[in-house]
């Protein structure tokens, strides 16, 4: 049944069921997941928003990666020291934002960015450039922590769950061992000594300590999947352990992994800001969103914008990642979706049609 006839189907209201029925029509697992994800509007919107933010933030400033030089579209960099502006600022404050989003017919001035849309900091640095740099750092940290934790957690959890026995015991006790050392403590201890090694190193060691929850989840998933019939069938057919792990079990566990990594990433962005706030994360002159907030929290009463802009960026990024994670969870694990609500049950369309249709 194609899309067209589906739209005219009286039971199309039961969108969950129509999708469930399509599963029998030769769609691959990936296609099913993609369809379910696209139906989660908040998640798709968040994915789009996060993508735009990443492009916006990373294209704003100059980038130098090895031999690659990119010239950003924003006129200031984080090290420029333009003159501190204090014209038209409320309460005799300095460096207030020039961003104006109220159209001309309300306040007389038009919509425009002005010289410093987010204002300036104490010594006149452009705050928009600082926030962009901070957001770059936060996004970078988020992805590095996510990738490192995903790799370590999946490998350890998979090996422990697949081989069981003493391998499992050793690896799980090792995981317990890492769990006892809270990442904020190890972050502070190392950060205090090596903190100025830069943001990449910070992300790297935080990743080294954030995989524990994931490895337990993956282990549980492997423990249950390895007992399933299709694994027995593969083994009888002579598949090697490697093939069973990569071709048979891992694709079935990938949903759990992806969902949990997304949630881990949104936690990572908050961990980085918290550590920077305490002074154990990113260290000046480098910039991060948490650092910006902690530097200017005392200026809140007089210059609130120094506090608002970095905070809003943290929240938007973390919120997007959370929604994407929720959409992925819905897509991979539809157990929570298919429940018939009371309203559905009392609708005009009798349920028998459902059963008839799926045959």
């Amino acid at each position, binding site marked *: 049944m194609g899309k067209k006839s589906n739209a005219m189907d009286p039971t199309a209201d039961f969108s969950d069921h129509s999708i469930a029925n399509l599963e029998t029509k030769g769609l691959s697992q990936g296609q099913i997941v993609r369809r379910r994800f696209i139906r989660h509007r*908040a998640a798709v919107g968040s994915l789009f928003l996060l993508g735009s933010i990443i492009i916006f933030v990373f294209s704003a400033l100059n980038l130098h990666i090895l031999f690659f030089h990119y010239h950003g579209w924003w006129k200031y960099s984080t090290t420029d020291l333009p003159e501190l502006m204090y014209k038209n600022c409320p309460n005799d404050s300095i460096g207030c934002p020039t961003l104006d989003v109220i159209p001309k017919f309300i306040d007389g001035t038009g919509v425009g960015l002005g010289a410093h849309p987010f204002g300036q900091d104490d010594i006149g640095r452009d705050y928009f450039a600082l926030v962009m740099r901070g957001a770059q750092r936060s996004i970078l940290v988020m992805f590095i922590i996510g990738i490192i934790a995903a790799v370590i957690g999946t490998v350890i959890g998979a090996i422990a769950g697949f081989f069981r026995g003493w391998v499992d015991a050793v690896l799980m*006790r090792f995981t*317990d*061992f890492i*769990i*006892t*050392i*809270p990442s*904020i*403590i*190890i972050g*502070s*201890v*190392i950060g*205090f*000594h090596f903190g100025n090694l830069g943001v990449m190193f910070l992300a790297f060691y935080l990743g080294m300590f954030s995989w524990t929850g994931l490895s337990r989840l993956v282990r549980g998933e492997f423990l249950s999947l390895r007992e399933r019939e299709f694994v027995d069938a593969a083994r009888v057919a002579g598949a090697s352990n490697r093939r069973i792990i990569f071709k048979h079990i891992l694709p079935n566990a990938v949903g759990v992994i992806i969902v949990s990594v997304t949630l881990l990433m*949104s936690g990572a962005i*908050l961990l980085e*800001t*918290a550590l920077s*706030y*305490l002074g154990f994360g990113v260290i000046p002159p480098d910039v991060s969103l*948490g650092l910006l*907030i*902690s530097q200017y*929290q005392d200026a*809140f*009463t007089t210059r609130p914008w120094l*506090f608002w802009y970095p*905070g809003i960026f*943290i*929240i938007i*990024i*973390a*919120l997007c990642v*959370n*929604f994407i994670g*929720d959409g992925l969870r819905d897509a991979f694990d539809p*157990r*929570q979706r*298919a*429940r018939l*609500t009371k309203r559905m049950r009392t609708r005009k369309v009798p349920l028998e049609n459902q059963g008839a249709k799926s045959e």
Partner: protein
Amino acid sequence: MFAYIMRRLGVLFVILFGSSFILYNLAAISGDPLEALRTSSAPNAKQQMLVLTRSLHLNIPPPIRYFIWLKGILGVFIGHIDFGMTRNAQPVATSISAAIPVTIRLVAGATFVAILLGITMGIVTALRQYSRFDYFMTFVSFLMFSLPIFWVAVLLKQYLAITFNNFLSHPTVTPGWLIGLSIASGIFWAAVISGSRKRVWSIFVAAASSTGIFLEILSITKWFIHPGLGPVIILGAGIGVAFAITQLSTGISHRPALKAALVMAAMGPVVYYPVQYIFNTNGRLISFPLLVLVTIGFAVAISFYFAKIDRGPVIRTAVLTASLIGILLIVDKFMQTWRPYMETDAVNYRPIPTVSQANSLLAPGNYWFTALDILVHMFLPTIALTLISFAGYTRYSRGTLLDVLNQDYIRTARAKGLTERTVIMRHAFRNTMIPLTTIIVVDIAGIIGGAIITERVFGWVGMGTLFNQALTSFDLNLLMGVFLLTSFLTVFANLVADLLYSALDPRIRVGG
């Protein structure tokens, strides 16, 4: 089972040994405790360095020094544990035992409120899955997931504390607030209860108008200046509580339970004046446990009178109702203390503080003043921490309940013709609580770890502050003391959670 527990405990100690060894050495190489003294120009700097070196054994390399520290810790087996000395020549145990009550006060309240609200919200949103209320709460909880706590804390200090203080010093509800709060309450109740369009509107109108009238009455009678409940309101609220608890616990149709709960409600105003007398003896602590015991004993006795068979549910209902009415009486006492507390010089009509854990200017001696002082200092940090941790419980309990509602035994229960209340409260809710319990156990153990950032923003001196202080001044013994306590509790709570899980859910076996 016993062998399994012993094995886990053994592994627990090995893990703690390993991680403490590594952390000790890491922390030892992370800085030089004598650095400040080396550059100091004080005449006795050299002397101080010598004293510090001797008392902290700084001349011994860290891997070996660790065993000196461990020897003190292992004293726990001979009944004399020694955490060592801090830099300021004070026993670590003293600093920690001073910090623990502060931390518990800070985190325990917030954890409790977050668990209660979070689970309630999770259940309501699961029962109203895909309603507007569900989408709204999903958005709110994701938003709270994404909030950095220090950011929330600064906002709370700046807006909530100041606005609330202004309101409390001149408590009149302005028309703007009145309308706003009424509409908010109308939307909230209409969304929670939901139903057909007509019903939603009538609920909205009813909730909004009753909230508005209620606030107006409070404002006109100057209730905000002289708050209090009094026996009449306690009777009214008690009857409401009795019906609500009975409905949730056994169902209204269970007459003995309803009767027992209503007797409890009637007892509220009866005991009001005697209880005031006991309260006014200025909180001799012995009387509180006694009051609790008397309340529970009375509730049990009444249930025995009303129910001849199957007493369990009746006792549960009566005890829950009695406890809530007891809480109402205590709240009333706090309200009566409010005005005199506001009028003291130490408070001076600005009751909501933004920093510190207690008002040092407040004269000691009055038990209720001190208790109220602690409560108002807890106000902002508790809100901040609750906002952050509330979201996790909501999402988790919503997910678990939805999972449970899809199980076959729920369909069976419905097919048997059980009422929706029984299906939800007895079959679904209890099974939802199984995974939640294990999470709660681990979280409660985490309370002792404190909240480094919250403590810092609000200027409390708890475990988090202690840890931070130890780290920045390279106070190794203090650092290890905090670490040992928190990590022991974490690992231990995980063990308890595993055991509890298998005890609550017989499908899961530990050991094996």
